[in-house]
């Protein structure tokens, strides 16, 4: 525990120190800005690994009246599991940010960015370690505020202001639900410490409490239909912050849901069904919106909604498994959800880093302006490629393993299941949702990778495009290596999953379910190695042939054009056009077309597609404008006259006093 306390302290101290460095360009200033998160995270990893290895670490408890309980920090298994990606990604993001932010050195105050970044990391650590309601909510609020300031990075843009506003208001809508949830749950408890609440929780309130928690935490997680802040906020922040927000911050929402289950007990079967349905919806709709986007970071942000959907599917299977006494499905579903939390942190971190690297080199985030940069940025391209395969859940990389867990959970349930029982529908829905998500993800990420990195450049930049500096590339290589390792040697990851899943199922059940999975992963490693072996072998044969024979290069054949143009290529819009048309009832993509006029068109013709968030347009904005319109009526009582306000205060006091007196007299 001491190490984590030191880490939290380091984040804070170096954050405040960084504030004083301002825009200085000395090495000292750079060091102060970056070494806090790196050093703190490395220290913090020590207890995390100890806990995951099965060691118990004593909590840090300090009775404190303010918290109606105590200042209570503890790393239990669940906290440790979520701290793992937080710390790993923070280390890499700090290196990355050090190099990435250099381009803004003359325009922005790097010191304040470092300050908010430090505090942001600190707040996430506090969120997952806090074991007291007030502490938790304070940390939750701090996390929202610090990330808000990071989102407002380019605050002079009007779009960013709107984004910040949207993020702020939605986060607080979620937090409001959490306030109600926590104080309802704490009703009748000895103190606000989690331990006391769990003991005295009234089981009759489970459903209502879980609903509130689901909305509150789901908003943070980006669950549909509470996701609309996510595709706005993530692209606005600098790349390394987007990576952290998408990779780990939204996972604190999942942490919240899991913590709620531990706190108030497993909710009823119907909530498992709700989780599966929400997961399927988030997954499919998230990826549908992702593939219609033209901005790399928006695309990645929507894909985070999809991945949260996959995690929710796993969680849902877990809850259903507990409630219907089918532990195998539950264990595998939950294990899949846990692993996907890790995996998504890694590959989404990798992809956001890659997107940042592309933006760093080209200064554009529009997919349609890019093309052919694999030759100029080979390492960014390679890592983005592997990240893309991972996120599509294709073997032999890590995304496949977590989806495999969920598939296996569902299929094993179908094997033992009974088709006369309607509960068989749940694994079927899960499988079909996963397959649909997988297929759509393949479309989305072949588009993202190919249009950005392959083909010919679609736009002529005035500057030379070259590979990003080492500190940007190395973190991507590290994440890429993790994706490959977890994918090819999945047996290594099993022990890390065993303990967290055991929080929800008995040890024996978990172990007996994991043994066949371990055997399966062992065989899969051999299969992958032979796949890689075949690939190498054939590649060697090919290279020998290439050496022996003549080898020419020419233009792309393209059915006989002598001079193919870059504009002839497929674009991001045309690649997904048919699908976008099929799903137009939900995507509502707007097309604006400049048709070529006359026989010899002088003006360039063009087609523009734009996909705004349907939920925002149809659900949130009407409500918002309704309230905005009617709020003007409030002007009548809010006149800006101080005397009037004084009168309100006195009136309120009088009412409160009289109510108090009346209720007393009744006693």
């Amino acid at each position, binding site marked *: 525990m001491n190490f984590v306390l030191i880490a939290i302290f380091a984040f804070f101290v170096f954050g405040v120190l960084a504030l004083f460095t301002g825009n200085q360009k000395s090495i000292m200033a750079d060091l102060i800005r970056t070494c806090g998160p790196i050093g703190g995270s490395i220290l913090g990893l020590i207890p995390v690994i100890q806990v995951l290895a099965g060691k118990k670490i004593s909590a840090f408890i300090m009775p404190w009246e303010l918290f109606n309980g105590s200042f209570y920090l503890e790393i239990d298994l669940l906290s440790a599991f979520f701290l793992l990606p937080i710390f790993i990604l923070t280390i890499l993001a700090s290196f990355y940010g050090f190099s990435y932010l250099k381009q803004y050195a003359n325009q922005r105050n790097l010191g304040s960015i470092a300050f908010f970044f430090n505090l942001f990391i600190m707040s996430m650590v506090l969120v997952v370690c806090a074991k007291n309601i007030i502490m938790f909510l304070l940390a939750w609020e701090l996390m929202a505020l610090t990330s808000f300031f990071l989102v407002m990075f380019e605050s002079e843009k009007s779009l960013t202001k709107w984004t910040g506003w949207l993020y702020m208001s939605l986060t607080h809508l979620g937090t409001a639900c959490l306030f109600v949830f926590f104080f309802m749950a704490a009703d009748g408890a000895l103190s606000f410490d989690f331990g006391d609440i769990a003991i005295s929780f009234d089981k009759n309130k489970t459903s209502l409490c879980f609903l509130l928690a689901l909305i509150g935490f789901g908003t943070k997680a980006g669950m549909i239909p509470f996701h609309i802040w996510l595709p706005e906020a993530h692209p606005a922040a600098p790349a390394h912050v987007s990576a952290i927000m998408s990779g780990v911050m939204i996972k604190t929402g999942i942490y919240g849901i899991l913590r709620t289950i531990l706190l108030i007990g497993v909710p009823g079967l119907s909530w498992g069904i709700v989780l599966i349905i929400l997961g399927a919806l988030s997954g499919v709709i998230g990826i549908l919106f992702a593939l219609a986007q033209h901005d790399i970071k928006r695309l990645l942000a929507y894909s985070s909604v999809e991945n949260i959907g996959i995690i929710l599917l796993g969680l849902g299977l877990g809850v259903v498994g507990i409630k219907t006494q089918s532990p195998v499905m539950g264990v595998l579903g939950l294990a899949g959800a846990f692993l996907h939390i890790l995996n998504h942190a890694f590959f989404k971190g990798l992809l956001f880093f890659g997107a940042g690297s592309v933006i760093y080199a080209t200064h554009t985030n529009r997919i349609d302006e890019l093309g052919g940069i694999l030759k100029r940025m080979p390492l960014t391209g390679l890592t983005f490629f592997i990240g893309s395969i991972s996120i599509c859940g294709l073997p032999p990389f890590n995304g496949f393993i977590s989806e495999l867990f969920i598939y296996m959970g569902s299929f094993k349930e179908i*094997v033992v*299941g009974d*088709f006369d029982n309607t509960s068989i529908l749940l694994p079927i829905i899960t499988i079909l949702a996963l397959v649909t998500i997988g297929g759509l993800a393949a479309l989305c990420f072949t588009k993202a990778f190919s249009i950005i990195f*392959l083909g010919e450049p679609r736009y002529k930049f005035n500057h030379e495009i070259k590979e990003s500096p080492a500190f940007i590339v190395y973190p991507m290589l590290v994440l890429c290596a993790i994706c490959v390792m977890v994918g090819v040697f999945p047996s290594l990851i099993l022990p890390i999953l065993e303990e967290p899943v055991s929080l929800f199922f008995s040890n024996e059940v978990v172990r007996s379910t994991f043994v066949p999975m371990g055997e399966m992963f062992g065989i899969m490693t051999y299969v992958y190695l032979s796949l890689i072996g075949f690939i190498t072998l054939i590649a060697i044969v090919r290279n020998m042939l290439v050496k022996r024979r003549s080898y020419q290069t020419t233009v792309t*054949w393209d059915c006989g054009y002598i001079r193919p143009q*870059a504009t002839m290529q497929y674009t991001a819009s*045309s690649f997904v056009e048919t699908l976008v048309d099929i799903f137009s009832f939900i995507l509502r993509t707007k097309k604006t077309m400049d048709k070529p006029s006359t026989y010899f068109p002088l003006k360039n013709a063009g087609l523009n597609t734009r996909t705004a968030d349907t939920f925002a347009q149809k659900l949130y904005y009407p409500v918002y404008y309704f309230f905005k319109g009617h709020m003007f009526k409030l002007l009548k009582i809010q006149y800006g006259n101080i005397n009037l306000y004084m009168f309100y205060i006195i009136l309120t006091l009088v009412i409160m006093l009289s109510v108090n007196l009346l209720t007393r007299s009744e006693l």
Partner: protein
Amino acid sequence: MITIILALILSPLLLGFVNQTKAFFAGRVGVPFTQLYFDLFKLFKKDFVYSKTTTWVFRAGPIVNISAALIILFFLPLSVMSFKGDIILVMYLLGLMRFFTIVAALDTGSAFEGMGAAREVLYAIFAEIVVFTSLIALVYLTQSLSLAEIFGKISPYHWTHYGPTLGLISFVLLVILLLENCRIPFDDPNTHLELTMIHEVMVLDHGSFDFGLIQYASSLKLWIWCSMLAHVLLPISSIWSNVVGIFLISILVGIVESTMARFKLIRIPQVLLACFALSILSLFLMR
């Protein structure tokens, strides 16, 4: 082991059977059964020409394709390997093959190949849903999770008790077979117009050794799908009956190709959704 060797040797012959059937219906003599062997031999001897636009992704495509196809052969019924859950691995390896074909096609920066890639990946979305729905039914019927058992364990007993389900599934799998292997009515490998192609247009720029690998990989893929379907239709667990079944199915493919016209591209998602409905129906019929 013998299944793998048979697949490696005989798979190019399948296309010969398809083409001969088509020639029979058209009243032509047709190309020899062994045409693909000659083609492969010739391709492997040729020199290399690459587009300046392409990168390592373009060169990796065919290699990954053939390697993944070889791996899948291990998992076929009566082959060497099998473990619980390998069915998901195999289906996702097919996905990996597709992923690499698509990115390799887009690597050329060609409009036509982009078109083909966009179609391939779109139809694959629907096809995968249909395949997994039928797999759910088969997993339940055979109570197993490995590809070898799911298809290998189907017996006459299943046909007598769950006939309607298996009938629907066979039909749906045949449709997917035609789609996945780019046959009429979904795709016409012989069309002379690139605008109407799906798979063939994606490999326009590949040549020589690479194209040989692609041709061989697609013949293996055809073998794999035929083998799976043959196990459902001819529920006898023997290698030779399976091989006979595979060739019978290739003749069936030839008949379908001869008697049907290609669907409009816009209709294909609708056909696949209809197949999805049928496979869902097959689940209900199992009760």
